[in-house]
């Protein structure tokens, strides 16, 4: 799974990304000082609970946020800052360089267009392929995702189940062989077994084309199963980032630890206290009101700190790095 070599430069680098929205109730700080790097061929999972801002990060990379969003920071891709590109330039990157797979596939597909046409569309519009050829390629793509047959090609989204539509979405996103795929809660609304199946297929194709995957999910086990590295978000901030297995076996941040204890297999131990407000988040470390080992210093903002990892990657490589935003380190 891990095809990354230590000397690889990151393919996508997010620097100090902050997103806020002006709403009638006030300024909502959806993401604050988010930094991470995505390497070639790897799968990075951005995990967190509802409202922690993980989808906002994905949408801001793609410039898909509504216009009441204020975005700061940079997202460097191929030497260019994606956040400063014009709509036209961004359109050329979307789909062909960076693709996104939405949650809720049955609503994200055009209801009155055949699925094959929706997949083939970009080949015709952007690459100028003739209709027959692009439809053939679309059929191949669907075939690879486990949807065979001419009858399937002629179907409309309303004739498909959610899982089948999710495959169509993935096919449409991957048809131009993008270098980065962002999957925004791809498993939401699918049954457990089906979600795993779809995700496995997605990971397979991703490896075939050599793309990187940024997986946005609330499902910790899914993230653990298919990602190389994992970033845990809480209330708009990344609290901890590191190798997935390592985070699971040895969570460093108190929030990560508490979150893992909520997992069914660890006995459903709840985190005390309510989720924080996004408009007036707690000062200092955002987790401190709910943290079991709070101290005076937690009222000030902690910094991302590198801690020793004990990963499988060779010593000195980037992947070994484990970063935690907590005063204890």
């Amino acid at each position: 799974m891990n095809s990354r070599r230590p000397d690889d430069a990151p393919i996508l680098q997010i620097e100090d990304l902050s997103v806020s929205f002006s709403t009638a109730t006030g300024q909502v700080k959806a993401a604050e000082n988010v930094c991470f790097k995505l390497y070639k061929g790897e799968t990075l999972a951005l995990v967190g609970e509802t409202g922690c801002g993980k989808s906002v990060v994905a949408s801001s990379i793609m410039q898909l946020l509504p216009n009441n969003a204020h975005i700061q920071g940079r997202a460097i891709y191929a030497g260019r800052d994606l956040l400063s590109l014009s709509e036209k330039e961004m359109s050329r990157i979307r789909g062909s360089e960076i693709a996104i797979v939405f949650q809720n596939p049955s609503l994200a597909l055009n209801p009155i267009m055949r699925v094959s046409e929706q997949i083939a569309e970009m080949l015709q519009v952007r690459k100028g392929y003739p209709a027959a050829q692009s439809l053939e390629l679309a059929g191949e793509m669907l075939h690879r995702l486990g949807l065979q047959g001419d009858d399937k090609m002629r179907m409309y989204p309303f004739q498909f189940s959610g899982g089948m539509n999710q495959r169509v979405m993935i096919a449409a996103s991957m048809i131009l062989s993008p270098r980065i795929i962002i999957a925004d809660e791809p498993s939401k609304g699918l049954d457990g077994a089906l979600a795993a199946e779809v995700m496995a297929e997605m990971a397979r194709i991703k490896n075939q084309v050599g793309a990187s995957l940024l997986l946005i999910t609330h499902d910790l086990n899914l993230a653990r199963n298919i990602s190389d590295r994992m970033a845990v978000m809480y209330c708009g901030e990344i609290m901890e980032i590191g190798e997935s297995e390592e985070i699971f076996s040895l969570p460093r941040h108190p929030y990560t630890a508490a979150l893992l204890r909520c997992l069914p297999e660890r006995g459903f131990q709840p985190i005390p206290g309510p989720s924080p407000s996004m408009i007036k988040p707690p000062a200092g470390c955002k987790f401190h009101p709910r943290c079991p080992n709070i101290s005076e210093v937690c009222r000030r903002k902690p910094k991302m700190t590198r801690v020793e990892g004990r990963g499988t990657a060779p010593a000195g490589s980037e992947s070994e790095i484990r970063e935690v935003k907590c005063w204890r380190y």
Partner: protein
Amino acid sequence: MIPDATLCASPEIMPEAAECPDENKRQCCKREYSRTERISMSLCSAREVLRMQKMSLVGLLLFLSFVLMAVFSEELAPFDPWMRFEPYLLPGSEHLLGTNDMGNDILSELIYSTRISLFVGFAAALMATLIGTIVGLLAGYYKGMTDEILMGITDIFLMIPQIPLIIVIASFLRPSFWIVALLMGALWWTSTARVVRSRTLQVREMGFVQASRALGFSDLHIIFTDVLPNTCHVIAPKFLLSIASAMIAEASISFLGLGDPTMKSWGTMINFAFTRGGFINGYWWWYLTPGLCITLFVLCVVLMGFAWEEQERTNQRLE
């Protein structure tokens, strides 16, 4: 503030919400803070909200001034509209908007006509909205056979060309604004019924209606306290838009001379100008002013209705 009151689709329109003296109830977008992702993907920009408020504020002010004009006609009008002066006077200092062929002061006529025009518009819209809401609620809530029958009737009413039918019926009866208003109310409810029905169909499947049913509340209780408050925000703009189309229809029917000749409305004023040579002789002040009044009033009602619908669209995106 006024703009809040017109735009907040939420608590203001339901009387029972006034219980909590909390500032929360005045919040327009009373959504949860932590669900930022959904808010972010959907909320229209604050600027846009502001613009909508401005638009509907203008509409509201105009609307209120027309209503005031209708209520205080006697106080506001410079003359009795039936009083006769020199005919065909151009607008001037004595008669601000001139006089007509009978020598009536146009400005006074205009102010008095507001009453009938608004009355017909409101009465028709009120009746239409009432019928439409009841039909829509029943059809949507009970579904099945009730729905089939009620919607079948609605479809038939939808296909009747309303203005020609009103013309035919009104031509048999003695001209009266009451009849015109009544007829319009009886014919105009269909689109309201459709909108209310489809919203009711949505609402009845929502968790809280199911929960109410499970808790053992009666159908009537559920329809009036659960379903109706959650359809109000589609009914209100529909009501405003019905006023608008009723006003246009009234003006059209009066233009044909089917209005009561002993009472004045904007439509009859234009009718008189048209049939008694005001138009052919180029007495523009006679027919342009009532026409502009119609347009302006309809415009402000439509503006308010659209602003409301827009607000609703924003809320819907959040749901």
